[in-house]
């Protein structure tokens, strides 16, 4: 990971209301390497998973780096339930 990685702590609630702000927040960081701290997540819904997945794909396409750190049990569980893996949420290009 590059030194310029932006660290973002994801909020505890990632429900439908959080999806819009999350998307804007991530879009604003586009082009930068980003590390998302997922340790505080208590609840996450499908739509925020969509945003995070899309971000990973976007970052991959951009050639930037996106990682998720310290995923909380709630987050891991949601990913698993949705039939996804944590690696789907990661963009590693460097």
């Amino acid at each position, binding site marked *: 990971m590059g030194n310029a990685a932006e660290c973002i702590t994801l909020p505890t609630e990632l429900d439908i209301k959080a999806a819009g702000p999350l998307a804007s927040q991530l879009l604003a960081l586009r082009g930068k390497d980003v590390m998302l701290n997922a340790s505080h997540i208590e609840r996450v819904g499908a739509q925020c998973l969509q945003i995070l997945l*899309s971000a990973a794909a976007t970052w991959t396409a951009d050639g930037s780096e996106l990682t998720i750190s310290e995923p909380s049990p709630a987050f891991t569980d949601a990913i698993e339930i949705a039939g996804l893996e944590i690696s789907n949420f990661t963009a590693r290009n460097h």
Partner: protein
Amino acid sequence: MDTMAAIKQTFFQECEEQLAELEDGLLTIEREEGDVETINAVFRAVHSIKGGAGAFGLDALVRFAHTFETTLDGMRSGRIEITQQIIKLMLRSADVLSDLVRISRDGGAADEARVAQMTEELQKACGIEPAPAAPAAAAPAAAPVAIEPVEGAALVPDEFGFVPTPVHFDFADEQPEEPQVDEFGFAPVKIDFDELLAEDASHTEGFEIRFRPKPELYAKANDALRLLRELGRMGEMEVTCDYSSLPHLDAIDPEGAYFDWTIKLKTDGTEAAVREIFEFVEFDCDLEVRPLISGFVEAPEEAEKVVKEVLAQVAAEEQAEKAVAPVAAAPVFEVKPAAPAPEPVAAPVQEAAPAVAAAPAAPAANAAAAASAPAPSATIRVDLDRVDRLIDLVGELVINQSMLAQRVMEAGIARLSDVAVGLDDLEHLTREIQDSVMAIRAQPVRPIFQRMSRVVREVADMTGKSVRLITEGENCEVDKTVIERLADPLTHMIRNAIDHGIEKPEDRIAKGKPEQGVVRMIAAHRSGRVVIEVADDGAGINRQRVRDIAVKKGIISPDAQLTDAEIDDLIFAPGFSTAEKISDVSGRGVGMDVVRRSIQALGGRISISSRPGQGTTFTLSLPLTLAVLDGMVVTVAGQTLVVPLSTIVETLQPKESDIHGLGEKARVIAIRGSFIPLIDVGAVLGYREVEADPVQSVAVMVETENQSQCALMVDAIIGQQQVVIKSLETNYGHVFGVAAATILGDGRVAVILDVDAIVAGSRTEMARIDANRKRNAA
């Protein structure tokens, strides 16, 4: 709160429609004319009621609808065989559901015992089957505790906390504005899981479920992950998420729906149980559930991919035919032989064809489903007040137009002048507008007929008679108000027909009749009116007994000479009731006189004809609309009256030689070889004491509802005119012999004659008055 009330009102309106659809569908199935879509429609009807009821916290309604729906689902999935017995049960359940809806709307207490009994019967219907649907049916009652974590459930709380159980309500504060869509939501299934597992060992395989949420699902505060989690509680599951349609972040709709899940679920639960998890979102997602026959996770990767691609195509097609309800899809994948557009995945589809060669009939079924699915834009819901206001205004327009025409005539403008021609055009236009506006209020009599089938069922049950209702002409259209106000009279007539008319099965057999009695209800348009016949094939009226009772009750004098028709007519006399003991069924404190009065209040007439041993027929004749009437304007003793044109056969000028006296006062007129009673309208209505000279009058030949003819004596005929009916009952009160009033072109008020009443008034009414007079004198 007003908004809420309005929404609730809309819900109840929709309930009415759903209930009608439900009953309609069930009756179609009963006649063995239904298909898969009919059952689906029935299911959807109950489901919608349940969904709405849930949103308003109408728990009793939800509970019953749920049980009902579970049984219907059994029918839909073929677990429950559709027999006449089951259909009967369904129909009775529909009755209970309808009651519960009504109680929820109007208040009042539900017949708990009946609901409980019905619930039990429904559950039994499910339980008879090897598939353990019964526990599911019982679930709602237990729902409040349902959420207690079942083994294997993740410890994390459900994402959005919409489950209404206390466990999850700690998050409630955070979604204060969320709609309470799933207040009592998805809980039912889980509690039954253990039972399901324990009870049904025969379901060893599982299901492949394809679940594709639509944005609406999220918008309604449901979360896909929670549904998946609940699925997971049913057994071991393998989830595959296809998110290939997910756009990049700059193009994403944060609240869009891009996931497409395929879940292989190894469970002993039933398909119903699986579907139940999705039941509140079933219209907000694409859902397919099909049994996993080849076992769990055994499909080769390749095949799976192919299936997925096929799914993608099917999804695309489904997208194209959004009208088709998602659940209408059979538990097999439907692939049209001819794909509408060449998709990139066309080749794999072909390869997959053997695997998914769902059914050659599928496209047809699909098309049928698409055809029968209601097009959303075909109707609009308009407040009745607005329509009525429009009708009123058009009525005023008609009056205004006729006033204008009269003024022009009075001004001596030539008939062929431009003004007069223009006025004629205006009249045509006005009439057309009026007809169109009336058509808005016109509704088929179907719903009321359907309601009667319930009455027949109930009364037949109560009296232990076997009765079949045959209806004809349900599509006959009548003014909505007329339809609404017909319910009570018709109900009473049907009750009477079954309770008093149709004999007990053993008596019928003894008489050589079929054991099952028949009540016929026929609606038809006849000369500008709608005629409804209620006929039974029972014993007919016992005239001697009717006569005796009428004498005993002082309705007629013992020496009165009455024709058969007049005797039959006595059952409409106030205070007459043939039932010696008041039975549960027809003795509800309403006599046929009330029926007649309510029909008269509608501007209608009721008549009876009966043949001993063959049955009785009641004939209702009603105006198509309560708003306008074609009438003949006449004068009687200086009063302007309107005689409804529909009753008039002809008019003539009586000759001295044609008039014959009959008895003390009565006169008849000889016309073409037959004698017809001559009635002086002025005398009957009390406009004059001395009867007019027939030779100086005009005789208006009218036909009454029981097909008898009479000649009404009036002083002069002014003309023929369409008049706007202004109810006398609403604005003043009932006046004998008067059906309603109107405003004429010159601004004067004229009363509209109730011809039947006038004719009757000169006969039985007279006899009754006579009898009363004698009794009073005594």
